[in-house]
């Protein structure tokens, strides 16, 4: 088994607002191995994106702050680096693709310049070499005729193409970890499938590790090796993709999987989880899923469930699991 390159331990990220402290990420731990795709799944507002941004230390300011934990990349705790050292990690070691890659390109520069910016920043190459790196990044993302497209402005490209260019920027400095924050959400289904295939191809060629943030279990099944399910700022269950689908142990995980529409079963109504996630300003003392949980017990109301290892690489935080 390949080695672990990223280890996140008890990460806590809060937003300090006028109403109080919003614990967007509250004690999240996971690791990512070299060359694997790790999925983070959960509904909107559960802290997936904030987790991703915390790894790069790019939280929205003012307000966003990492209040505790460790983020260890190749033995270095990123939270101990100063601003300049951290900048050297961004793009070069860890890169990210945003939720809406369509608007991630600067409208006033040709795309070649935008990829070159990243290359120049981290690799200190001469111009001809930069050009070559740019073209190879575009090739990696399977962009046809990169030499021609180089001079195009973002508005001259189609949506799918722009998305690949954003991927090329992210991959241009050969990062070891790529955080992809719902990159497929803005795409229609056919392009989505293409894009996922493209990601897999990029990963095969570069052995990059990917943290794939999504709310779509279909994408998880296609893309990820291991998955963490997040709920209200905490990871409730971590397991390999096949285990999650075959034997989910947390009631929230099974509820989520049940809510995915399926063509092969003729259910009358699509399953939905009753109620709403708790406010992150005012969390219940016990299990966060307790108010919506079909299997809630008394202990769930009073105490937070500990994380229990239930199988090989499969851990769950639920009182119902023994």
């Amino acid at each position, binding site marked *: 088994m390949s080695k672990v390159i990223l280890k996140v331990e008890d990460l806590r990220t809060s937003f300090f607002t006028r109403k109080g402290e919003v614990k967007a990420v509250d004690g999240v731990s996971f690791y990512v191995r070299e060359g694997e795709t790790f999925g983070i799944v959960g509904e909107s507002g559960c802290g997936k994106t904030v987790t991703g941004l915390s790894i790069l230390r790019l939280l929205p300011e003012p307000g966003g702050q990492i209040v505790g934990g460790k983020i260890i990349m190749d033995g270095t705790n990123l939270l101990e680096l100063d601003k300049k050292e951290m900048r050297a990690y*961004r*793009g*070069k070691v860890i890169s990210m693709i945003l939720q809406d890659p369509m608007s991630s390109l600067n409208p006033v520069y*040709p795309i070649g310049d935008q990829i070159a910016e990243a290359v120049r920043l981290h690799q200190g190459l001469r*111009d001809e070499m930069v*050009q070559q790196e740019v073209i190879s990044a575009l090739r990696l993302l399977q962009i046809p005729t990169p030499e021609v497209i*180089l001079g195009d402005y973002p508005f*001259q490209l189609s949506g799918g193409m722009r998305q690949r260019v954003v991927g090329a920027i992210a991959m*241009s400095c050969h990062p070891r970890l790529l955080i992809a924050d719902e990159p497929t959400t803005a795409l229609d289904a056919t392009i989505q499938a293409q894009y996922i295939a493209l990601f897999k191809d990029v990963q095969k060629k570069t052995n990059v590790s990917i943290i794939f943030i999504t709310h779509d279990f279909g994408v998880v099944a296609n893309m990820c090796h291991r998955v963490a399910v997040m709920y209200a700022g905490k990871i409730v269950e971590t397991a390999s993709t096949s285990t999650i689908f075959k034997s989910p142990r947390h009631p929230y995980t099974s509820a989520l999987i049940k809510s995915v529409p399926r063509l092969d079963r003729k259910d009358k109504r699509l399953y939905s989880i009753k109620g709403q996630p708790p406010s992150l300003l005012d969390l219940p003392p016990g299990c966060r899923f307790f108010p919506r949980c079909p299997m809630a017990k008394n202990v769930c109301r009073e105490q937070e469930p500990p994380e229990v290892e239930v199988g090989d690489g499969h851990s769950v935080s639920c009182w119902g699991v023994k």
Partner: protein
Amino acid sequence: MTGAVKITNGGDIRGGARRTSIFLQWTFFIPAVVLLLLVIMAIFAPVLAPYPYDQIAMSDRLMPPFFAEGGSTDHVLGTDLIGRDVLSRVIYGARISLSVALLVILITASIGTVLGIIAGYLGGRTDAFLMRFTDISLAFPAILIALLFAASIGPGYWTVVIAISLLGWAPFARLIRGEALKLREADFVAQARIIGTSPLRIMVRHIFPNIINPLIIMVTLSVGMIILTEAILSFLGAGIPPPAASWGNMVNDGRSLIDVAWWISTFPGLAIGLVVLAGNFLGDWLRDKMDPRLRQI
């Protein structure tokens, strides 16, 4: 742009050849030509002016323009109280009035842009401090402060330039700050941060190029304002001292003689009006052109 990648675009069939020539649009063409002619006039003043601006001819005092009764084509726009040729002085006056406008714009737009981008992008305390400073500057009556400054330093060309610039940067700073604030949240700025771009580089390379449009519009609109302010300062005696001709001090010279020799004030006044109008038209045209919502109509 810093060190662009050499780009070879194989046979560009995309951009170009779809918009009509801007020279067919009169709202652009007329003000642009007017401003261009005035600039040429200013540059070639010694060649174009029939007389030196300070040549006194006591025998030809208060001659009316050629089309009025008693006028002559020797002094096409007439002469002033001490027999100086009004046309020559209007032509020379363009030098001072237009160069003051240009200098003041360079100074105020640069200061305003730098402060605006820093405040808007960095936000937080920097923003609060710079913007309160801007608000204070905006709260003062600009003309009075300029007048106070000019009066205490003593009139002169550079006094006028500095006096107008003193508070003139504030509207620029406020506008640019708003734009930068908007762009700060743009995804491409986030993307730049993700690849490790430094804040300075983001401001220079990603924010600045995207605020050039509103900046150009603001510049064209303030040309008129600056010339007017110079005229007001000169009119109030705190501007360009005689015998140098600026449009403002010419209007001032003719003020007391307006009922006997209307031409002394009128022609430089018209020149001021022309520049202000041309600047405003050009600014309006640019604003319409660069606003995508208006462009689609």
